[in-house]
């Protein structure tokens, strides 16, 4: 059966849709992710927790335990690594960074220990102001604090924790907003219609019209 160009394109659309829908159903994007970690600080004086949206939009909540003081910088557009690097000028260095790329949730997150003096960490609001970042302090109750914010595409958040003891526990919850996919059944129906239309374009009764 020889198909005209539009018939070939319709069949290709249908077959691609079938294959991509099946993969999307099995391995497609997630609308939420969560993580929990307890970080032993050793000689470090603080912990930086960071998260950045890869492209989607979502709400993030970070709960921190065993904290004395918690600061955060929200709506960072650009690379968080660059921001952390710029802190080095003020003798605040990040070590032991552990970063997780959760591609299916569209989020990069992780933590790094901060080696500096407690005095410098306490002076962080002033330092951030010099770097033109608006830093906010979070109320800590019984060593626990929570930061909630909305991440727009490509935006990130950096939370700095000055601990009470020698470890910090944090829990991250991220929910994607505004993402919806067509169900597998609907995709397969559209796929079948496209393949059917494409194949019908090559049927003999279509060809008779050219003669």
């Amino acid at each position, binding site marked *: 059966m020889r198909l005209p160009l539009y018939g070939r394109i319709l069949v*290709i*659309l249908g077959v691609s849709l079938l294959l991509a829908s099946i*993969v*999307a159903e099995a391995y497609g*994007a*997630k609308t939420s992710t969560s993580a929990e970690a307890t970080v032993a600080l050793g000689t470090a004086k603080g912990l930086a927790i960071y998260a950045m949206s890869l492209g989607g939009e979502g709400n993030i909540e970070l709960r921190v335990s065993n904290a004395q003081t918690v600061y955060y910088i929200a709506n960072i557009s650009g690379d968080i690594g660059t921001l952390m690097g710029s802190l080095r000028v003020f003798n605040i260095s990040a070590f032991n960074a552990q970063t997780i790329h959760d*591609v299916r949730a569209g989020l990069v997150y992780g933590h790094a220990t901060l080696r500096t003096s407690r005095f410098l960490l306490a002076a962080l609001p002033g330092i951030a102001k010099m770097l033109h970042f608006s830093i906010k302090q979070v109320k800590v109750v019984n060593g626990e604090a929570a930061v909630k914010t909305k991440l727009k*595409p490509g935006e990130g958040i950096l939370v700095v924790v000055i601990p009470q003891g020698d470890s910090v526990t944090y829990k991250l919850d991220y929910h994607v907003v505004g993402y919806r*996919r*067509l169900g597998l059944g609907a995709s397969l129906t559209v796929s079948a219609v496209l393949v059917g239309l494409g194949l019908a374009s090559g049927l003999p009764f279509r060809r008779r019209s050219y003669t």
Partner: protein
Amino acid sequence: MAGRGRLVDLIVLDSLDSLRPPGFDLMVLVIATLGAILGSIQPATSSYLLARLILEPTLFTVALYLALRSAAGVASLVGEGIMEVYLSYPLSRGGLALALVTSRVLVPSIILLSVPLAVAGVILAPVVLRDPLGLLVVFTGYLVQAFFYGVVFLGIALSSRTSGTASIIGITFYFAYNIVWMLLATLSPGLGSGLLRLSVAMKFYEVLYYYAMSLSGVHPSIEPGLLGFTLVPAMTLVALAGTIAYFKWRFEPT
């Protein structure tokens, strides 16, 4: 009217050669399937993001197709004597050049860029229908960039006449253009924001991506400015005028 009909006939006839199966069909199937998979494994919550996710890797394939099949195919038309048959059509040389640009560059670019987007658009219909303009804006950016590459490849093919030479020079141009872009983007932090603006302007789709972003209320990190909106379209017009002028006055089909 009759002249326009003959122009369309020639576009259709030459498109059937440049888009012939099975190579073209296999390519469209693979890029459409993989592009749609790429678009659905990450939660793209805006249509302009979805378009970029899919079209970024697709553009590379489109450029290779335009250099290896479309433009190099024109050189084969000359070698096999088919160009002489085309020139015997009751069409002006300028009209024939336009037909070749349409069938060898515009039509393949539209199909190769739109099919993966259409497949992902069905799967992510709720996202796309919320902001179809963003998708169209980014698609236009990639289409203009592909058209620019394609017109340059066609000009090279017409002047080099053998498909092997046309392919090599075309791909060399594509490689050089992208390396220059990369160098400008890499050097710009040390040498000033002018270079960064120039590097963004070299990729028209980046400019329209930032524009689509601002349409959605997200403030882009770079303002492309007037240079961004004019550089690639202006280079495309110059390449198009040069290719048509060469075909009209200098091209010999034998």
